[in-house]
């Protein structure tokens, strides 16, 4: 065991060396580093505090209470849903552009085709036939609540009312656009 270059350290070590060896492995009996003991004791204190704080004194919220608080905070911050938007078709180009973008972003095209022509899943949106009504209110309602049984997702919890107005306006703007490969009409003809 004479490989250390520092003879003083070597001497100190000799005093700490335990008198047994295991297949040539020896052990020193150095004191445990003080910072290590502090670390251990501090973590134990933190844990005792944690248990008392949350369980015995019930100072901190449990997860159900945390959830209730989170939802309450969100409800307080959320004013948009409280102020209903007027039901008006938005025909300005900016709104239609925004609606078109939402039509892409929300993957409407995956069921209704890129130009609203419909496909095997969803109906044609460009003709005058409507399964769930062709009035602006009907379309707003449909986008908001969806038709889950038929696979149409409700978007009311993904889009603001304004955004839904934009998409619905965009959808209405597709009327009569006669895209290729349009799906056959379904539903009632709108007046």
């Amino acid at each position: 065991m004479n490989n250390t270059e520092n003879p003083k350290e070597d001497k100190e070590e000799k005093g700490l060396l335990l008198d047994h060896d295991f297949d040539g492995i020896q052990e020193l009996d150095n004191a445990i580093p003080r910072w290590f003991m502090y670390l251990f004791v501090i973590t134990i204190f933190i844990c005792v505090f944690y248990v008392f704080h949350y369980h015995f004194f019930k100072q901190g919220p449990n997860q159900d209470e945390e959830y209730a608080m989170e939802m309450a905070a969100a409800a307080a911050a959320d004013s948009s849903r409280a102020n209903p938007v007027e039901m008006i078709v938005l025909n300005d180009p900016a709104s239609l552009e925004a609606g078109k973008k939402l039509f892409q972003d929300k993957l409407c095209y995956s069921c209704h085709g890129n130009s609203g022509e419909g496909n095997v899943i969803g109906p044609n949106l460009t003709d005058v036939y409507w399964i769930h009504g062709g009035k602006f209110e009907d379309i707003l309602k449909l986008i908001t609540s969806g038709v889950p049984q038929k696979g149409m997702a409700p978007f009311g919890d993904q889009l603001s009312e304004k955004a839904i107005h934009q998409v619905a306006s965009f959808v209405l703007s597709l009327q009569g656009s006669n895209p290729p490969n349009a799906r056959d009409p379904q539903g009632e003809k709108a007046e």
Partner: protein
Amino acid sequence: MEVEKFYYDNKIVKFFAYATIFWGVVGMLVGLLIALQLAFPFFNFKIEYLTYGRIRPIHTNAMIFAFVGNAIFTGVYHSMQRLLKTPMYSKVLSYIHFWGWQIIIGLAAVTLALGFTVSKEYAELEWPIDILIAIVWIIFGINMFGTIAKRRVDHLYVALWFYIASWVAVAILHIFNSFAIPVSFMKSYPIYAGIQDALVQWWYGHNAVAFFLTTPFLGLMYYYLPKEANRPIYSYRMSILHFWTLIFIYIWSGPHHLLYQAIPDWAQTLGVVFSIMLIAPSWGGMINGLLTLRGAWDKVRQSPVLKFMVVAVTAYGMATFEGPMLAIKTVNSLTHFTDWTIAHVHIAGMAWNGFLTFSMLYWLVPNIFRTKLYSIKLANYHFWIATLGIVLYAIPLYWAAVTQSLMWKEFTEEGFLRYPNFMETVVQILPMYYTRVIGGVLYLTGAVFFIVNIVKTIRQGSFLAYEEASAAALPPKRGKRLMGEMIHGWLERKPIRFTFWVIIALLVGSVFSNIPFMIIKTNDPSLAAVKPYTPLELQGRDIYVREGCYTCHSQIVRPFRSETERYGEYSKSGEFIYDHPFQWGSRRTGPDLARTGVVGGKMYKTAAWHFNHMYNPQEMNEQSIMPAYPWLISNKLDISSTPAKIRAMLILGVPYADDYPERANMDLMKQADSIAADLKVNGIEVSSDREIIAMIAYLHKLGRDLIPMTKNTPEKEIDTPALLSDQPSLEAGKLIFTNNCAACHGALGQGNAIGPNLIDNFWLHGSKDSEIYKSIHNGIPAKGMQAWKDLLTPAQLQQVYSFTVSIIGTTAPDSRAPQGSESIRTKTE
């Protein structure tokens, strides 16, 4: 004392070493395959035996039990003989152990690919293999304790403490986690259900990490590090302190895998606090290892063995600090279900277990082949390329984890999820998945360098199968504690007593974190609404398990706004009482599925959607990384197993009628037919006897029973308004009817392909005023009828209700045939 001559058995060490290397490469190749599958779904090849859900458990099992397992045995069989100055207790047992273990690994690989799995992570193997594991493990134990009994060294060295604790803990964990009721030769249901199963499983899963991946390797470190460095162990006192605190505290921390999930708060608290207290005991091993190198750091530069060892021990320190941090609830809420966990385990697995194994073999192979390592340079290349591999593997995944988690949680100013489409959050992290593949390739390349080096070393050496050694026998009768002998020193001479205290240390935490659930029923408030699985749903669930869906989809919604907005109501403990095994999962590569059966919920998809999606996910969404499952459509569902499955569930206490096993298949076929009919309406022709039908039934069951409890309980009495008979009101009602109801009930209420006839005298949901009003008000969501209270004002509801009642008894062309029971309304009703 007479000096005795004896021979160390190096041959068994060589066997285990070769197995380590072989399975290591196999496991890494499988790992590379699944990394590719996550980046490019093409690599699932549309072959059921190669699909991610089945291959991922092969990777984890191969790395843990085949690679690391054989590495442990290599080191234990090599070092134990030398530390105890005796050959192994029984050569026969050594070889039974070796071949038994390799057979288990082979069986594991084959059965997992075939879909035989319990789906409990790192305990996926079915019951016959579990029994085999227990037998082989006990044989290993007999061999180990037999060797200890005939030792020529009085004191047990610290490495042996760790070997003993590992053996005891793994035996307890494996046996108690594997209790199951066999249904057939390769199918069983765990005896635990729901939150019990989750707690037992993560008590196991967490401590498999502790006592298979950590403590045995600390034992190896305590032998090979001082051997190569030629330095004494830094602190014997530290060894004692960190050994006992580590094994005592580790076993409590399992519930930290279930934070914010449907287990009681106090259990979560145990998981949190014991994880925090674990930092220091874990670091004790690192400190003792690194400080042992004091005065020998110059050697680290020259010796690849020490290079690998130093990185291994440092990575151990990092991972054991990271672990407790991840167990803090706030941190966990961000990292859980993300790739952070994957990065974390790969730091530990690749650097701590992998590098320590390489280090050990670089030392051991030249040693038993009586030569020098073929090329230090090549070993250094291995070191650097593997280190780079780890960095390129882990860093992108940490990045991916934070990115995806923040996307999951982000809300717009208007209060909506910014990324309601889960797919967007997956697409965002795909580049990180590509980089991860590169990291894996580099690590594997390093392993190839390693193999070349080892093969060359073996070629240039000559193997010494039985190495001569000599030592004095121990004097008999030496049990009494000597004057001035420290208690621990005495304990080290008394293996049985030592083992007894190890068992006590392990049992305390095990009992506290598990047993209360076995006894106290109040901890599991069963929801009255939760019904057992129908036979078809049960079969579907078993397919879900077989395909390893849990490897990518969780089934537990945590109480966060970002999760209830995305998935629906958060999960309650009582929902899972019939779940043998639980399917909560640990990673959301895809979205959570706990609420896929909630009609009108955010996760609900129609049967046709599921059918198309399973058949070809990329057709539904080009960027999806989900594998396709075409065989679910071509495979016939095996319903001959239904009675046995129901019988097993009856034994487990699921409340089916006693004669239900025999009747179950009738219900199964009825339900299957109705799903096939639904698909047909949507243009999909599929026979009702296919596996996909059962799968759809199961997905439509998830979360379905909870809804009455959260939304409408206690079911409020609805006040039925008076019938209006004035003409303007009926006109208004008619208008509402035409706009809203006619689509499904026909313009005149005559019914159509979707909805029933309303003008005849047959009723599906009752003919009384209150019943009709309730049907309109609440809807029949399961059948597609809207709850109109959400869409109409009370006045409108009254009008449409009045109109609907007014047309009863009228006639219309093309009326739909009657459905339900006949009941003629009288005027006074």
